[in-house]
């Protein structure tokens, strides 16, 4: 009787609650919206830890995920810059962005330099030039609506547009560009597709 009562009350120890830094340390992991910005999926990709590699396996190249949120620029305009640097080495990308006249070029350059620093400091990358850009994409940020005043008492509703920029750096030289597909190759693929069809629901 005494033991079970003690066991029941054993979980309720008020001094244990107040000892932790926050009142409920495990409450804020899975809520959908908290007071502070929630951690995005791209940032979480840096947290994956692979098991140690076996002696015979080829070395897995380091991958660094970095992003910047709520940039005051249009996602469509930012996409052109992201498409420019996709697949380039990091030095070439920085050179192209330095002499581009677009507003987003300055932002992307900062993001790339931050990512390079992260790579060297935290992700065990030996040479900061030995990185290439595997993925670079843009996403839509939060839009706010505002009133734009026209003549004769008319008004329009304008959207203040923001975007996110995501980049994935991978260690190693950039992969060679794919040769463009000729018409003959495309035709061959099409014929192959037709030949590999099977008849369904028949003998």
């Amino acid at each position: 009787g005494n033991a079970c009562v003690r066991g029941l009350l054993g979980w309720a120890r008020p001094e244990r609650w107040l000892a932790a830094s926050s009142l409920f340390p495990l409450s804020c992991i899975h809520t959908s919206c908290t007071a502070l910005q929630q951690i995005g999926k791209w940032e979480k990709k840096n947290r994956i830890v692979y098991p140690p590699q076996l002696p015979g396996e080829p070395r897995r190249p380091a991958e660094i995920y970095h992003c910047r949120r709520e940039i005051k620029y249009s996602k469509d305009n930012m996409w052109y810059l992201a498409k420019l640097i996709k697949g380039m080495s990091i030095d070439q990308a920085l050179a192209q962005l330095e002499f581009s006249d677009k507003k987003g070029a300055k932002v992307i350059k900062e993001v790339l330099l931050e990512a390079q620093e992260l790579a060297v400091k935290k992700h065990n990358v030996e040479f900061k030039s030995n990185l290439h850009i595997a993925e670079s994409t843009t996403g839509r940020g939060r839009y706010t609506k505002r009133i734009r005043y026209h003549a004769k008492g008319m008004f329009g509703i304008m959207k203040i547009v923001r975007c996110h920029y995501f980049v994935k750096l991978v260690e190693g030289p950039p992969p060679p560009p794919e040769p463009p597909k000729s018409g003959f190759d495309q035709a061959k693929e099409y014929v192959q597709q037709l030949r590999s069809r099977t008849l369904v629901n028949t003998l």
Partner: protein
Amino acid sequence: LVVVYPLPRLRALLQRCWQRLESGLLAGFSGGQSPPWGPALAVQAPAFLPQPVHDTNESNEAASLLDSILWMAVPKKRRTIEVNRCRRRNPNKLIKVKTNIDVCPECGNLKQKHVLCGYCYAKVKAETRLIRKEMYKQEGGPFNAPTIETVVLYDGEKPTEKDAGKRIIERARKRPSWFAQN
């Protein structure tokens, strides 16, 4: 997206419609019988001479306005996202890769081939600014530039015979390597 406050525009539209109605009524009346409020003539002459001139003008105006609105170039169908993508991602719209980027031999930063190196230019600009501040201190105020040449001397340099009649600006630092003497 433009939103219209309906009242003034609607009023103008209604006024125009009413005028057209009135003119239409008058024309109808004069076509069938004589208008009840117009002077009844003995002769079967058309009593509505002045009206068609001003009536057709008005109807022409109104008709041409509406017609011109109808004939304006307007999209017939919504452009699908596939068509939009083909236009936006066409290679002539993509940003071209620049091949005119080199390394500056002086400082090692990147520079475009036909443009001065940004870093070197900023460095020279900063030094020029300090020299100009010294000049301002010597002159005392604006518009006091002397009509003789100027020579800039750094630490440990003495004016030679060539710098006899020139104004001398002293800079309290070592001579930078890119600023050659004479």
